[in-house]
């Protein structure tokens, strides 16, 4: 068949469909799923409007309503937000949450980056097995993983036994029900997300770029710091924001592994909803948490656009 495309694109895999003159294949045949009318979207849109937009609207309205049980329409107020922001205790909980989120994000990155890099350099079954081992824990419920940490970090647990065997400490070290336990549990819970983000970013770096650096005489160290690291930054940023978001909004790990001593914003929300039953205040804290997380995400987007490998 003759190539009759008016402007042939050299080397392009997706060549234009040659105009054969007779309309055997109509333009819409390029995408056969076009046989579906847009109405196919109706069920999912209705479902998400009813189950996502509706509830989110309700929580926003409840957070500014006056009735204690969250009755709407009795008057509006910003007092719930004022109560949170004006109270030094609540402010300190917010700061502690952000601190835990930052520590967890940083530690996850320091562990995930070498792991992703190392895994990518392996071949065949070993690479597949490493990736599987790193991602499979993501699929086990956080209740079960928390149970594992309770045992590992116990006063008479294996980690304390190792520490005293090595002679670093004499008596058992209190690890469970501390912020250390919370941070460790969150790192474990969120590491797979970071590994996935970094691995994807590293994998998408074209081999040719590395080879070009090699031919240009770059040492392995230069290749890493001048080529690989900068090009992987968008993945690092995306993974970091995801991990931070999940860490800052987690409540199961802080509640169980922190033993009630490490309070996070998410735990304040849970208490307002399940214990104090002050729904408007709980809703306001939830909205604040959402706003803080949204701000971090927006910041990441703004920064990522300026990165060398970033989109846009």
């Amino acid at each position, binding site marked *: 068949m003759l190539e009759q495309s008016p402007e042939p694109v050299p080397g392009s895999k997706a060549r234009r469909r040659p105009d054969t003159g007779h309309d055997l294949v109509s333009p819409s045949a390029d995408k056969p799923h076009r046989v579906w009318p847009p109405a196919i979207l109706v069920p*999912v849109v209705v479902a998400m409007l009813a189950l996502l937009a509706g509830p989110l609207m309700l929580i926003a309205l409840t957070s500014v309503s006056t009735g204690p049980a969250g009755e709407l329409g009795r008057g509006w107020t910003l007092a719930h937000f004022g109560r949170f922001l004006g109270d030094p205790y609540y402010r300190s909980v917010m700061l502690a949450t952000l601190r835990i989120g930052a520590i967890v994000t940083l530690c996850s990155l320091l562990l995930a980056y070498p792991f992703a890099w190392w895994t990518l350099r392996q071949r065949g079954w070993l690479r597949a097995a490493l990736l599987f081992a790193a991602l499979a824990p993501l699929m086990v*419920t956080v209740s079960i993983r928390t149970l594992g940490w309770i045992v590992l970090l116990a006063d008479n647990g294996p980690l304390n036994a190792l520490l005293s065997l090595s002679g670093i400490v004499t008596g058992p070290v209190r690890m469970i029900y501390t912020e250390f336990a919370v941070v460790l549990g969150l790192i474990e819970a969120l*590491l797979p997300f970071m590994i996935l983000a970094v691995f994807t970013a590293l994998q998408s770096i074209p081999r040719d770029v590395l080879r070009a650096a090699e031919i240009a005489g770059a040492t392995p160290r230069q290749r890493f710091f001048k080529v690989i690291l900068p090009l992987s930054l968008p993945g690092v940023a995306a993974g970091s924001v995801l991990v931070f978001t999940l860490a800052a909004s987690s409540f199961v790990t802080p509640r169980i592994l922190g033993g009630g001593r490490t309070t996070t914003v998410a735990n304040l929300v849970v208490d307002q909803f399940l214990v104090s039953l002050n729904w408007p205040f709980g809703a306001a804290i939830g909205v604040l948490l959402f706003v803080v997380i949204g701000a971090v995400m927006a910041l990441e987007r703004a920064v990522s656009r300026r990165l060398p490998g970033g989109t846009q």
Partner: protein
Amino acid sequence: MTRAMKRAMTDAPGRSHPLVVMAAIATLVILLAPLAVVVAISFTSGAMLKFPPQGFSLRWYLALADNLEFGRAIVTSLQLAVATAIASMLLGASAAVGLRAHRFPGRDALESFLLSPLMLPQLVLAIALLMYFSRLGLRASFVGMWLGHVVVTVPYVIRMVLVSLERIDPNIERAARIAGAGPVRVFFQITLRLLMPGVAAGTCFAFIMSFDNLVVSLFLSGPRMKTLPVEIYGYLEYADDPLLAAVSSVVIVGIVLLLIVMEKTVGFTRALVQQGA
């Protein structure tokens, strides 16, 4: 081409810095130790939730078989996960096809909206649904939990099917058209078949994510309607019982087996890596 050049071209694995290897091993230990410990303890013959286990026995598995609470929770969780997976598959696949089939004003905004639960803290969604369902009388009901889980899992299915749609080679569909198949036939016999791995992976993920879910379930469950993660969570605060390790081990083994099957068929890790976290 010499052999040395060939080796250089294929980017031979080469040696990594010892610090890199140590960090990688530490990562694996942190990820796998909690699960390994739980499985090990489940075989203890003692009555303590303590590692290393004392002796070997199957007594906690036998106790589990007699435990009605966990049994009921497992059944609830499985029913919920199957119902969620089916609904997410139908809604997610139709959404992805609809989003790519036509250009219409606001399409990008609609796509962002449908994928937005991925960005939303589950806790915020959970309390919002709790308030919403309280008004509708769906609190502490199977249907309420099901609807909540669907909101969480649908975006994952949409994203996986979108990735599959983008990877279809249009030449295959074109060839079928040229060979004389009508558009409907091409969709069902070619496109849908090419989409199946993505749809299957998305459906499996929806199943697992529903089975695993604690946050949404915790707020929407009730004393008579508990999923397994909620039941285990309830035990974590009080009980010091190897029974917990036994039920957890059953779940761990079940999930790992499912993931291995997925890896061999639709590619569990590939599906995750393709869509990039």
